[in-house]
């Protein structure tokens, strides 16, 4: 990529991909932005596409900024933010993200250390460990809800009764714990796998040198292994945060947003589909974008500098 011509050739060849990515991002983003400033209640008779149902008609409406809908300014934003559910939803979202991150990083490191030990059947065990990641979120949430956490027939209920205790009604008594458990179970394999590869790339001579330098097992972990893992941990945290901010299926299937498990994503879903208020939901969507960016900036500040090294 040194010469002028090879640089411009590269630009031309990358252009289609860049264009596609832009359209992919900008169309939904601008749609959300426009609608967040509009009153759009389909059940009250608000309509787009008065001209007809074709794609061209929609495109014309979209480009002209949906003239059939009333412009309401920041009314949707103030309405969304002033409802008591909003702050709760933000806190719930952050607690779930933080909880799952903590569980998957800490247990991911421990599991990775365990799997790094030479043992019989290593290959099979590693595949089994990654298996939960392949289960669809909806399915895994249903499995947890019905097979483990059901207060009458669940395995946990049987276990509790076997010891003479009253079964815990997991999803209503400790809903956040249960949700974090379910989501962590799904994301732990991902963290484990990335951390395992990081462990495997740790130079054994470094550990031996530390051993000769008088570092015990704990000192070797904290002074040698953990700094070596910092980059992998950063990647796990960044990638998981992106997906965890948008977690939805697990809540939909288990608590349905009840018992204080309503995340921002879930709140938006309720505003749009249950209240049929698309403008309000779009305003929520914009808040979600802002929240995600705030979290992202914090993460980049705190852990992102690990990537520079």
């Amino acid at each position, binding site marked *: 990529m040194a010469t002028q011509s090879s640089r411009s050739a590269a630009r031309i060849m990358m252009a289609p991909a860049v264009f596609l990515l832009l359209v992919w991002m900008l169309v939904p983003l601008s749609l959300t932005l426009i609608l967040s400033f509009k009153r759009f209640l389909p059940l009250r008779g608000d309509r787009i596409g008065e001209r007809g149902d074709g794609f061209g008609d929609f495109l014309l409406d979209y480009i002209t900024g949906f003239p059939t809908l009333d412009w309401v300014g920041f009314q949707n934003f103030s309405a969304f933010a002033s409802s008591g559910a909003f702050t709760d939803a933000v806190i719930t979202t952050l607690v779930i993200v933080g909880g799952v991150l903590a569980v998957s990083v800490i247990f991911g490191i421990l599991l990775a250390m365990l799997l790094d030990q030479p043992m019989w059947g290593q290959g099979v065990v590693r595949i089994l460990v990654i298996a939960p990641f392949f289960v669809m979120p909806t399915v895994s949430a249903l499995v947890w809800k019905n097979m483990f956490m059901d207060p009458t027939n669940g395995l946990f209920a049987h276990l509790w009764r076997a010891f003479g205790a009253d079964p815990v009604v997991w999803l209503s008594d400790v809903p956040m714990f249960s949700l974090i458990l379910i989501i962590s179970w799904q994301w732990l394999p991902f963290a484990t796998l990335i951390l395992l590869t990081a462990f495997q790339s740790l130079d054994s001579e470094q550990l031996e040198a530390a*051993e000769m330098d008088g570092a015990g097992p704990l000192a070797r972990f904290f002074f040698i292994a953990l700094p070596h893992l910092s980059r992998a941990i950063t990647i796990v945290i960044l990638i998981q945060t992106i997906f965890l901010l948008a977690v939805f299926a697990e809540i939909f299937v288990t608590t349905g947003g009840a018992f204080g498990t309503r995340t921002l994503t879930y709140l938006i879903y309720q505003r749009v589909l249950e209240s049929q208020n698309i403008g309000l939901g779009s305003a929520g969507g914009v808040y979600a974008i802002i929240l995600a960016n705030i979290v992202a900036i914090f993460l980049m500040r705190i852990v992102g500098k690990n990537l520079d090294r």
Partner: protein
Amino acid sequence: MGRITLQKVQKKFGDVEVIPPLDLEINDGEFVVFVGPSGCGKSTLLRLIAGLEDVTDGQIDIDGEDATMVPPAKRKLAMVFQSYALYPHMTVRKNIAFPMRMAKMDPAEQNRRIENAAAALNLTDYLDRRPGQLSGGQRQRVAIGRAIVREPAAFLFDEPLSNLDAALRVGMRMEISELHKKLDTTMIYVTHDQVEAMTMADKIVVLRAGHIEQVGSPLELYRTPRNTFVAGFIGSPKMNLIEGAAAAEHNAQTIGIRPEHLDVSTTAGQWQGTVGVAEHLGSDTFIHVHGVAGCDPMTVRAGGDVDVKHGDTIYLTPQAEHLHRFDTQGLRIA
């Protein structure tokens, strides 16, 4: 103090015996080099002494005390690894301080030792850099610095120069030798390079397949190799080993003559051959001679002014006093 004694030390990995029972005495202040072809068990032997591998059987004494079961950190030995094994996320200063920090040494004393080591190794300007920003030779010195500050009973070097380029290797070789003279501490040095062994060692231990073939000073090994293996391994270019009729004349199975102990003539001599490749180094000429019965090619080290070309006929005469004789087992005949 750093006297290390190995008594019947044996190492097996599963059923494979890497090191058969072996005895070795290393005196205080000695520079001992373990040398041998790759896979001869020299690194394993060093790791046994370091405590990074458990001995299968036998006893290791350090300064007269049984250290066989003592963990590596408590053996008062410092090791320099082939990959240097520096901690990449720590600065040079922290790398060097690490063993003292683990020993919970007084910070003022730590600083004093770091400054001393840095000054001795020309690292003062690099103390705040990370290993990734250093050249190979500097990393090597940091690794040595980390070993020095512990003031160990003995230093262990595991092929420390094999990752450096040839010019740097010669320089570091001298630095390590000088360090040994200055510190007067026992050093055990593993290498596969017989030049390093010859130039640095007080005592060379030649190993083959875990067996000690010979122990002795560099010149002892050069002058009186105990068998054909040591004869062929020590010295560069390698000793010419001749079998057959020429050896039988001297009542031996094999006779050996070093390339520098052959007289060259273009007119007359004991053996006749044709020149294959002649390597002119300026100071010397290495001539590979074909056609001598029992040894093909035979290497000759002649003066730099010898003018021979490929295909020339050449006559060689061994210097009788430098002839080595070996019996059917390959052992030296006195």
